[in-house]
């Protein structure tokens, strides 16, 4: 039941040696594995807001970046909003897709599979009776999220399915959306 490591050279742009080295180092020093990810968000107007994402904490110290990133969110005109940016729930879909896609590239590199193209298409079902408070039995969030991958790679169908499955197994965002998380909110 072992997977044969392939010897041919593939390049998915992932530095697997560095990832494996990090895994080994963090196994020896679990305290360095404690990370904190951060974002700040300011209200602009209406449902429009702007998040700034920059520094994070990890490997036992503050990590600074060369750039900070800006992510905006709003709501569409059918919600009587200005549609300046995607809705937060669409950003969740985007986050899930990006996390799974990055995982697919890393696992493929590790397994010696050359990727040619990876495209994820996502759809989340939502019953607005939840967020509008019409029916307390309806949840606010997605009832179900469907993710479809179109992947072209130098591998069998089963090996490609295994890539996608392994990526889900090790995905942070997949875990965040499928499992509960304690959320602590404070004011001032």
């Amino acid at each position: 039941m072992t997977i044969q490591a392939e010897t041919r050279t593939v390049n998915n742009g992932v530095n697997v040696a560095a990832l494996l080295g990090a895994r080994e180092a963090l196994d020896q020093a679990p305290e360095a594995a404690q990370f904190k990810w951060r974002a700040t968000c300011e209200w602009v107007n209406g449902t429009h807001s702007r998040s700034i994402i920059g520094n994070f904490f990890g490997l036992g110290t503050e990590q600074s970046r060369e750039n900070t990133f800006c992510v905006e969110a709003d709501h569409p005109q059918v919600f009587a909003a200005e549609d300046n940016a995607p809705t937060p729930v669409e950003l969740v879909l985007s986050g899930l897709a990006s996390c799974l896609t990055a995982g697919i590239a890393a696992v493929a590199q590790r397994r010696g599979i050359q990727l040619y193209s990876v495209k994820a298409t996502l759809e989340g079902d939502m019953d607005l009776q939840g967020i509008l408070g019409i029916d307390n039995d309806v949840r606010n969030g997605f009832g179900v999220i469907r993710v479809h991958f179109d992947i072209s790679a130098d591998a069998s169908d089963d090996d490609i399915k295994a890539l996608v499955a392994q990526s889900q197994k090790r995905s942070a965002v997949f875990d965040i959306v499928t499992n509960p998380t304690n959320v602590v909110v404070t004011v001032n």
Partner: protein
Amino acid sequence: MRHVTTVIIGAGQSGLAMSKYLTDYSIDHVLLERGEVANSWQKERWDSLRLLTPNWQSRLPAYSYEGNDPDGYMSMPEVVDYLKRYADLTGAPVQSGTLVTRVLQVDGGYEVTTDQGSWRCRTVVIASGACNIAAVPALWAELPRSIVSMTPMEYRNPGQLPDGSVLVVGASATGVQLAREIHASGRDVILSAGEHVRLPRIYRGRDIKGWMDVIGAMDVRYDEVDDLDRARRLPSLQLIGTPERETIDLNSLRKLGVEIVGRLVGLRDGEAQFSGSLANYCVLADLKMNRLLSSIDAWISANGHDNRFDAPCRYEPTNLGPQTRLSMDLNDSSVKTVIWATGYRPDYSWLDVPVFVHKGRIRHDGGVVQAPGLYVMGLPFMRRRKSSFIDGAGDDAADLAAHLNRSLYRAAA
């Protein structure tokens, strides 16, 4: 204080196999056993349990099954008789009713304290098993008090459960077997499944454990696998030993009427929360099963046996319906019992030697512990994939006894 060259802690298959080799090397030793030979098989298993390996596969050094049902699966009383006969046959020096309370490194070896006095020895073999304590997740503490909470160590049969439905947490060998049996007793059962390993009992007319042995999968060594930690953490196989040689998996349980839900990931104010990741774990298990079946097919073809066995086949993918339930209010449901089939771990509370890595595991290289003269046996994938099976005790004992013997010579030189 008594003196002996080697103390073996535990008289199960691992300790007995080691004893056989030490006797062959003329190394004086004693097996300290808290109960009797094969104690945990006798006292810490549920009534209906049978071995997951066929009778012929319970091979031990200079000993094998000679009954008239080589393809059957031993019940627990049969396992106990089988190992007791082996202990008699090999003349294993078992001191039963002796509980080890402390092992301490001293000059030139170890001091082993028991409730029946102390021993001084040069080498110690820890053969006390991998399944001493039921590992229960921390969220256990959040269970409403009205619900009976039980581990497989305490479970014997459905008759001891209160009336009402049962939530079985964990879908490895223990969880699927208990779910099946409790459902058959007339109770509604909900089975919470995370990562699992699915296998057919019989493939191409032969037992799957037989195939894994024949193709060499059980002999794969610990220094040959890509990711040893992962191999050692692999959940136990979804198998059951029944006279009908039936296959047990999430599909078969669902057809019986067991409700399958995702991994139990939260318990808050009595509400159990189940993960939405179950579909992926089912895909992983189906793919893994098919890889094993493909390697069996390849072995059969490579050895020119295609016509000797049934044709290759693949099984229906795991199908749990459109959506599994994500939560359940235990304050307001028919569930009256939760059984934690969430794995086992060894108990080393008596081991006072600095050989631990995080999470209480012993640091060892294929059973050779990083303290001179200290060995461990019977852990999952310790030296080989078969290390934690009866069939694996012999080869591991041969290797470790040879190492132990050499270390005594080196010390004497």
